């Protein structure tokens, strides 16, 4: 065998396992899903799907629950991204300073990420429902005693963001820690001699130098908050219900849960599939735009 053909063979041989599994579990289902989203498929045995064209897409855009869910998801994602990144960056600054027990803190902040979303959701449900009011009662502060984050449709989103931040900030912190440790000490010293105080150093040197981390962290937080499902199931399961513009809505039913409910709860597989496709498109556009924007801000050494 010629060396070139042998190289080719080896190339495809090594690529095959990853390529085949990717095609089988991602590409083929994706196109099957695209097809099913244009039928009236219900996943009931023995019923043949009937082609309905773009009917499912049309009904989706006239469905108030979908629109509402979409807006709530956007709100949740924007606030989560801000909250997680702020908390993570603050933690990262704290644990990269010369403090005692910094490895203990690093591990401590990271551990919530190792707890599964469902378990974590039930823990926080307990905290929001029982611990917070009893602390309020203990302190004699009525505001805290009556604060039922998960029962108030206007506040429930903040409860979710709180729990989600608690889960995810430690993971994002690790990325910031790695980035902060990579900022050359000399640059900070040079800026100190140039006359920069703490905030000027942060804004003019540190933040631009960790732009690469921002690309990664904003991508990860954006995508995972868009797709958030398990914490919500455990915390609120979509509730509580609310009246919005005269319609009954589930105040914390975000897109992933909405799609699940449509497909599996109401058994409208095809409709759920159509919504999932739109969800995919929107998320792709948003995250590609975000990565493109962040990439431009990165510094090459």
């Amino acid at each position, binding site marked *: 065998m010629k060396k070139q053909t042998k190289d080719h063979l080896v190339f495809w041989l090594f690529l095959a396992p990853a390529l085949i599994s990717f095609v089988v579990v991602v590409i083929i289902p994706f196109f099957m899903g695209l097809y099913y989203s244009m039928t009236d498929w219900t996943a009931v045995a023995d019923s043949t799907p009937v082609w309905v064209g773009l009917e499912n897409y049309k009904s989706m855009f006239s469905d108030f629950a979908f629109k509402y869910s979409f807006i709530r998801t956007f709100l949740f994602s924007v606030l989560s991204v801000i909250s997680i990144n702020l908390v993570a960056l603050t933690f990262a600054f704290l644990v990269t300073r010369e403090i005692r027990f910094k490895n203990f803190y690093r591990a401590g902040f990271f551990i919530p990420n190792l707890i599964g979303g469902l378990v974590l959701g039930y823990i926080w449900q307990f905290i929001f429902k029982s611990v917070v009011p009893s602390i309020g009662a203990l302190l004699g502060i009525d505001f805290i005693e009556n604060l039922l984050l998960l029962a108030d449709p206007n506040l429930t989103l903040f409860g979710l963001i709180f729990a989600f931040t608690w889960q995810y900030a430690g993971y994002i912190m690790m990325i910031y820690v790695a980035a902060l440790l990579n900022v050359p000490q000399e640059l900070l010293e040079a800026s100190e001699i*140039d006359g920069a105080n703490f905030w000027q150093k942060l804004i003019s040197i540190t933040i631009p130098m960790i732009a690469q981390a921002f690309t990664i962290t904003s991508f990860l937080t954006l995508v995972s908050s868009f797709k958030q499902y398990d914490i919500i199931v455990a915390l609120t399961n979509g509730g509580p219900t609310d009246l919005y513009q005269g319609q009954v809505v589930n105040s914390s039913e975000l897109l992933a849960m909405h799609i699940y409910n449509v497909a599996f709860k109401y058994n409208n597989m095809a409709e759920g599939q159509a919504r999932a496709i739109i969800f995919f498109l929107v998320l792709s556009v948003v995250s590609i735009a975000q990565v493109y924007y962040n990439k431009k801000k990165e510094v090459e050494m």
Partner: protein
Amino acid sequence: MAGVKICKLNKIYPNGFHAVKDVNLDIANKEFMILVGPSGCGKTTTLRMIAGLEDITTGEMYIGDELVNEVSPKDRNIAMVFQNYALYPHMSVYDNMAFGLKLKKTPKDEIDERIKKAAKILDIEALLKRKPKQLSGGQRQRVALGRAIVRKPEVFLMDEPLSNLDAKLRVQMRAELIKLHNELQTTFIYVTHDQTEAMTMGTRICVMNDGVVQQVADPRTIYNAPANVFVASFIGAPQMNFFKGKIADTPVVEVASHVFKLSDHMAEVVKNKGKFNAEVIVGIRPEDIKLGNSSEGLPAKVEVTELLGSDLNVYFKIGEKSYIMKTESSSDVKIGDTIYPVFDMNKLHLFDSETEKSLLY
């Protein structure tokens, strides 16, 4: 414009490492002071303490007349050039130079004027819009200097600024730094481990070892009258030859079985110090050994020769002991030859064998 005065300066790191020990240094205004020594000798730590980047464990430091122990770097009116230049990679050359001035709220047109002027001195006018990664090592070096110049500091601190440049550029930048010092008429404090840089650039040199100042003097004195064995061995290339000897009251110095007669001046000094019959370390620089004929010198065997263009280094052995001498490249010495080296007795250095301090100076 200001001098720097350091009294009894000590630095002990949290892990117990005593990096700088009782350093006293009085650096005059407009001086080009070089801190030189092997790596780990505390010279960079000292410089960083002058900059305010490192806390002072004990001792006092004055810039001008002000005690600066507790003054933060930005209020010391100093500028520092780092070994790796420490240019801000996300800023253009112009912004790198303007950064410090902007923080001080200098008016825009004055910033512009100062940068143009510094760029002209350093010949980097064409580079102002570039980012640091688009520059060569030498250009980055100039920008780092420019960033220091525009701030018009009272003291320039430089931490091995030339060590990342190639040999040719280093020689060129050396000359330019000397020129710059003349032009700016400011105090320079310069850290290096390179003795050539120390000898060529400094108005004074401070030789350090193990956190202790060994000698502070002008380059000529450092070379001709080293205060101890360390200074004598550290400065000068090839290194000074050392050998053990004993002073007899004849007055001669006995080395192995050979006897060298001391010059009258040396005999006088040694006598006054009461070192007759004492064990000493004798030192002689390679260029103070000459080739002689069989009646003048001791027979020696040539082991290696190194041709350096203008000079020829000859490594030879008398008995079991190796020596180096430096002679003209025209001399026809080959490996294996027997030569008769003659030691210039007026240029001998004598050191106490216990304290290693010079007996002569």
